[in-house]
């Protein structure tokens, strides 16, 4: 499941900037940390973030599905083809430095994916638009960000409709990987062409409704912010700065 899931968790009720700040903190933190233990501590933090949002199960499942192929690739590239020295793991001799590298890279990807899936699941696009309007952000930028949050669920819904229609016309989805690959054609083409055709109408409709005016939008129901949330956001920023400072200090040492 990728996309907003309505709920009443603390993350759902938080100001959208707080939710996004935490996800961005995970992203930036992932690149500041360089040791497997540190990175996996960050993965644990991402899991706590998802649990607070009440979406741990769905986000972790999707994050694993997305990260597992990358994990496999990293293990082959770094673990099997990495530099000496090697250690025997069953019948295979793996590079210890390579495995360490794979753990860092895989952990980073897992933390980032889990963090952003959680943000997508808990930050309501509507509340984000209201929050950005309240801050006077031009609608073009607001729309760019908010529509990014909604594009995947919309595409998934459309893909399901197209698949149903194609199945009614005899498309078979099962079978060998090659047959499944062939089935992508009747899905991808209408999906892309349909989306492009609809974009024209949506641009016209948004323009007709004053979205292109460039003026400041009136927020109708801006989400409440609080000093505690502002402190949390500044703390995330401070932690990220501290992590990079530590990284560069260690590199110089």
């Amino acid at each position: 499941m990728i996309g907003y899931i309505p709920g009443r968790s603390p993350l759902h009720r938080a100001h959208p900037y707080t939710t996004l700040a935490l996800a961005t903190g995970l992203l930036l933190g992932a690149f500041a940390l360089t040791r497997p233990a540190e990175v996996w501590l960050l993965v644990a933090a991402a899991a706590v973030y998802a649990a607070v949002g009440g979406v741990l199960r769905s986000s972790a499942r999707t994050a694993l599905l997305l990260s597992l192929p990358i994990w496999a690739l990293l293990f082959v590239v770094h673990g099997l083809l990495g530099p000496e020295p090697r250690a025997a793991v069953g019948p295979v001799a793996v590079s210890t430095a390579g495995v360490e590298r794979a753990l860092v890279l895989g952990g980073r990807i897992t933390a980032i994916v889990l963090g952003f899936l959680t943000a997508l699941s808990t930050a309501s696009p509507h509340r984000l638009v209201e929050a950005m309007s309240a801050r006077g952000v031009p609608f073009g930028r607001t729309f760019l960000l908010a529509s990014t949050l909604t594009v995947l669920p919309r595409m998934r819904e459309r893909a399901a409709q197209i698949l149903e229609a194609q199945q009614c016309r005899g498309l078979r989805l099962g079978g060998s990987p090659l047959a499944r690959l062939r089935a992508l054609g009747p899905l991808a083409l209408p999906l892309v062409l349909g989306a492009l055709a609809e974009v024209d109408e949506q641009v016209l409709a948004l323009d007709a409704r004053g979205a292109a005016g460039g003026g400041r939008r009136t927020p109708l129901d801006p989400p409440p912010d609080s000093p505690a949330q502002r402190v949390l956001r500044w703390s995330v920023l401070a932690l990220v700065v501290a992590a990079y400072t530590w990284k560069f200090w260690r590199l110089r040492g």
Partner: protein
Amino acid sequence: MSAHPLVALERATFSYPGAARPALADVTFAVAAGEVVVVTGAAGAGASTLLLVATGFAPRVVGGTLSGTRRTAARRCGVVFARPWTQLTGLCSTVRDEVAFGPASLGLPRDEVLAAAARALDRLGIAHLADREPAHLSGGELQRVVVAAALALGPEVLALDDPAAELDPEAADALYAALPGLASAGTAVLLATPDLERAAGVATRAVEMRDGRIVAEGAPARVLAGTAVARLARAAGCPAPWPVDVAALLVRADMGRGR
């Protein structure tokens, strides 16, 4: 043509980007407040394009080239297309917010925005949907939301491009029934539709297009009487007003048999 038009095109020729031939050719046309003008023609005749050019969305938004003159006294034009789901912002969690989106984009005070949305919902008879989520509405309800969203901005010219294509007959009747009210409130309504029977009931003027040109213009009874179905009905001795589409002809025939 009206004495004080809200929009006037003079010898307008419009081509879409990359198109070999113009979609609108040498068109002179005007529409005034209070009119409901139905624009008819076969697919590709240029009816939709006439709406886009008249309302100024072409070439400003869709691109392309326009020659000739377009004059307008309208400060704001609205447009509604056939597919309601392409016209939603996708960013609003209630119908009220969706309808209020336009006035909010103009930066009006919050109270005015909500009042404009409430008025538009009332005019379309969908105030009861205000707290519903747009994604959970039927096609007919959604299309009325889209029309309300267009009306919330108070457009002087409202272009409706086949607005009942996704509606069930009752919802289509309700939508068409609302058009004379909009016109009498001062809105100029431009309607491109193949649903001539319903359009004939509300239009004050009809325009027929072929190959991007206006080939007939005038009272609906005169222009629409030229459709193949109306000619057939006339030849068969049907009393006026003649049906202008096949469905209406069949209904009339059925009624004749029952008499």
